């Protein structure tokens, strides 16, 4: 097994409906998808988001596009129009989930395709 941060293993996008934050994770192959299924459970996601998510977390599977969907209740400080958060739409929640570390089979870690980074900013 190997320890890997989700940012190196998958993509993510998040959005909102009322006080619900809706985060999708995207794997790049079947093996990575299986690993995510075992590791990124609703309980772990709820614990990861800590004080950011006060309600339940539900997980849905979309195997046809190798994706997991997390529907997080009580995740936006009351919903976009009344939230005091600067990120009142949960637009950063996908990135926040990508901060999670998971244990995956060695070949999954070796094949992780998201280790690429944007060009380095100008050096100071």
């Amino acid at each position, binding site marked *: 097994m190997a320890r890997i941060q989700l940012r190196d293993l998958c993509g993510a996008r998040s959005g909102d409906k009322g006080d619900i934050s809706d985060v999708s994770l995207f794997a790049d192959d079947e093996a990575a998808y299986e690993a995510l299924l075992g590791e990124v459970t609703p309980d772990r996601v709820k614990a990861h988001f800590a004080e*950011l998510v006060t309600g339940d977390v539900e997980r*849905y599977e979309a195997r046809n596009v190798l994706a997991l969907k997390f529907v997080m209740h009580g995740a936006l400080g009351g919903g976009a*129009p009344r939230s005091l958060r600067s990120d009142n739409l949960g637009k950063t929640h996908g990135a*926040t989930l990508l901060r999670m570390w998971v244990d995956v089979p060695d070949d999954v870690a070796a094949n992780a395709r998201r280790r690429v980074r944007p060009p380095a900013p100008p050096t100071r």
Partner: protein
Amino acid sequence: MAVRLGGGQGFYGDGHAPVDDLLAAGVDYLVCEALAELTLAILQKDRQRDESLGYTRDLPLYVHQVMPYLLDGRTRFITNAGGINPVAAGRAVVGAARSLGVSGVKVATVVGDDVRPRADELGLPDDALFANAYLGARPIVQALDDGAQIVITGRVADAALFLAPLVHEFGWAWDDYDSLAAGVVVGHLLECSGQVTGGNYSGAWWTNADPTRIGFPIGEVEPDGSAVITKPPGTGGMVTFDTVREQLLYEVHDPARYFSPDVVADFTSLSLDDLGGDRVRVSGTRAATPPSTDTYKGLVCTPAGYAGEARLAYSWPDAEAKARAALMFLRKRAEQKGVPVEEWREEYFGVDAFGGSTAHNDDCEPPEVIGRLAWRTADRDSAARIAPEVGVLGLSGPPTLSGTGRGRGGGPSQLLAVEPFYVDKKLVDDQVRVEVEEV
């Protein structure tokens, strides 16, 4: 023969230049989705100031853009830009058409989504700023069947704006649920403009071609509901398996049961095939079981207090400690003044503003921190009483306070609460009307 749908708008304030690219590339329908959950609240405030407002005000600009193509018989135009006042929007469209000196253009307006006048009967709050049901594709199809070249609606389910021309063109029956579901998928993929063509892409976003002019999407839809998602030639961005699947699941909750007024679609049933060359095929979409519901979703908006905000930036060394001390100062001063604050929110940009306690930064001290303090009160005056304390920090707070940019420091803003509700379709259908006017 495929029908070409152009996704010309994803929110009120979206770009207009990509619309010209769509029109030049050739689309049968330009479809513009202008209404996020919040947009009606903004438009409601407009209408309170001026009864002739309440629609998205850049609507005439879209009319100007589409008109040459419309007069050629190439393109029809569908939009929910009518917002809270589709009748006024219809008048604005007719006015814009007349100002261009055109004639013979049929403009349809769909009304009836507004259920606020019936708040009592529906058990909705009597202080609602807006209460609207999300209508389906049917009234738009009726308008197209009546020959309308421009269709203006208020609140309509986003994907229904795109489903309607497909039903009109292909003659899909209202119980042909698999086809309707396929149309909803296409609509969902196109309704957020650049978000399916490389915008907000979480992968290698820096590999987008020409990221300053990301093209808006085109759906080439076949009579069986399968479609190719692409974009105008020569535009920036990209259409790949990755960009399309990120949009596919955007804000859908349970992907096996995506509710829309006309059908419940199963997004887990479909296949995405990356054909290369910025073309992705979507096929095999089926409806869920059961495939429909007997209610429309609605959204009601009520006042929810007022918010104030202060942002304070401090420099190294000990930037975070200084920012924390400054926010504590303001909270204490509010307490001493007896301001009845109902909720505080502290954020430190560069430390934890977005990630909260998930954001660990043990390895280095951040180069700068912006402290953000927000507060909620029941009334506007109380919310306004804290801002004057910000200036005091300039001479009497921690060292190195600096600015955080222009344009902040406005007065308190009103907060709003939104709640979904469900209403019997019959009840709403009885009040739905389609009015067609010829310019």
